[in-house]
């Protein structure tokens, strides 16, 4: 069983929901990413989503776009991201790590080379934002050959046929995009999330994470009541951005924010 599957199985047995924070690798600086990942785990993260910086992050809002730009200013490549995961794994053999990014860096490295390197580094799942299952045949084969879980997005616009096709290709968990928009958007509608999740559950037994637009503990707790996992991205990246050059307290502030979310999620469960 994959680390992701085990993680969700354990949480389900404990009656708990997963908290999945996101960090763009290399933001604000490459040497701060691994300590930040450990701080996230210490604050109650169950899975960590690591963003691979890309020059043209079409699905991301301004906060994560700027995080990508900061990371790319340090020339953080996909290979460098994998080194960071490898370093994280030295001290944490348990927490699943999901890479989230765009297809072109993966294509440039080559699917097979990437999948081998990612598995060796200790990556568990790969979410490639801009490849739908229809185009993903070769990538899926490369990932599954290395025991990596392909994670796919489901959107408010996904039709029933697409829900079935995506569920059939996905492993680990499904990532429901809670709104029509980019990451960090402001118009989360809990009622529409609730009804779509019911529809998704009709197609799959995979755990479902919900992300895009979850900013605080209240929203996290509300979403956790419906979903198996809550993904928090822009709200954390914003903390890094607001800190500017003074990076000393980033891990502590992000840890505090996650601890608050953890408590709210567990209290509501």
């Amino acid at each position: 069983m994959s680390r992701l599957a085990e993680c969700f199985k354990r949480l389900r047995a404990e009656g708990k929901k997963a908290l999945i924070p996101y960090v763009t690798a290399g933001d604000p600086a490459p040497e701060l990413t691994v300590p930040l990942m450990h701080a996230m785990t210490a604050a109650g993260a169950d899975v960590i989503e690591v963003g691979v910086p890309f020059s043209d992050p079409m699905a991301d809002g301004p906060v994560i776009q700027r995080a990508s730009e900061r990371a790319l200013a340090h020339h953080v490549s996909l290979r460098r991201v994998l080194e960071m995961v490898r370093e994280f794994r030295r001290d944490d053999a348990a927490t699943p790590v999901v890479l989230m990014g765009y297809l072109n860096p993966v294509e440039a490295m080559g699917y097979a080379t990437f999948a081998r390197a990612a598995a060796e580094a200790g990556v568990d799942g790969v979410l490639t934002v801009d490849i739908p299952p229809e185009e993903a045949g070769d990538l899926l084969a490369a990932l599954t050959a290395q025991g990596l879980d392909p994670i796919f997005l489901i959107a408010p616009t996904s039709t029933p046929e697409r829900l079935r096709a995506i569920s059939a290709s996905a492993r680990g968990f499904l990532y429901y995009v809670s709104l029509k928009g980019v990451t960090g958007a402001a118009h989360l509608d809990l009622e529409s999330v609730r009804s779509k999740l019911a529809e998704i559950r009709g197609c799959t037994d995979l755990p479902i994470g919900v992300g895009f637009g979850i900013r605080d503990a209240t929203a996290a707790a509300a979403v956790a009541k419906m979903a198996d996992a809550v993904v928090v991205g822009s709200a954390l990246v914003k903390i890094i951005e607001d800190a500017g050059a003074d990076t000393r307290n980033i891990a502590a502030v992000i840890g505090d924010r996650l601890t608050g979310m953890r408590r709210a999620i567990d209290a509501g469960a």
Partner: protein
Amino acid sequence: MVEPVKTRPDWNSLPDAAGHFGPYGGRFVAETLMAPLEELRQAYEQYLKDPEFLAEFDRDLQYYVGRPSPLYHAERWSRELGGAQIHLKREDLNHTGAHKINNTIGQALLARRMGKKRVIAETGAGPHGVATATVAARFGMECVVYMGAEDIKRQSINVYRMRLLGAEVIPVESGSRTLKDALNEAMRDWVTNIDTTFYIIGTVAGPHPYPVMVRDFQSVIGREARAQCLAQTGRLPDALVACVGGGSNAIGLFYPFLGDSAVAIYGVEAAGDGIRTGHHAAPLCAGRPGVLHGNRTYLMMDNDGQIIETHSISAGLDYPGVGPEHAWLKDNGRANYVSITDDEALDAFHALTRIEGIIPALESSHALAYAARLAQTMDKDRNIVVSLSGRGDKDIHTVAAREGIKV
């Protein structure tokens, strides 16, 4: 049953149902856009066969755009060059001054039928933004145009023109602040406002069905040119030349000739300061395949797969990708892709202006420069058709600044 072996590719059979031109094209977008793209594809395929839609499109091309655009024999310039005869397909004479309007009319008519009241567009040099703002004004639609902050500086007159037409022009400050970033931002708007909004992409790139749809709307250029050349010279041209940024005027000219194997085809990319300097915008000549903006195609990227900044004196060619059909035409050899530097394009800009009294767009000047070179290698009884994709009024400040002249 064994399929008969085809002696030559069936040029009209592509793309396949999922938008692939060989290994290129396709649909590489986040899940939220998949259903809207499918809805668009179905609507497009339905109206493509709808006589009423096609008649309305033709009527608008005739009475609003001013088509057919002439095929003009540049006799004096041809004589001066001393080689093949150069014929200019005068897309610069279209309403709004470039070929872009052919496509924006088609997409706006489609948007109306799909019940969308708001249109958005990206623009580089401005002509596609102007053409979109123009049709939006005419159809009473809300219009938002995304334009890189760098390009806004280079093309202030077009920005004002769009605003006069009632469009909101939003400067894009992310990334390299040029056309590719404007496209990213337009996609982000679309994904947020899918229910109300139609995204009018200006070139033959993007996710399926955009490359095929824009090609179909633009291929009026080649259909006319083919008939005009037959009527005016008594035969098909020996060569076609068009500039390639995203490649919409080029594919519009080339597509109706793809089956005419005797017609040589040249797409001209922007070599900027020169291919060897790395400061250029020539993905077909010097890039490699990858995935950007919803399709697989040739791209300008570094070894890590990050898209790199391009350079061209012409904002309309300053784009790191290219339409997927061009990628396929390059690989199978049906078309040749070459490049022209900023300086060579400027020489052609001046030559056409002084010798024929036609001020060409800097984009088109790349095609003219290559055609001039090609003509000199061909006999005088040969014919070259060049796409004069736009007029150069928008570029006179760029040219003047480059030459140290204050306008």
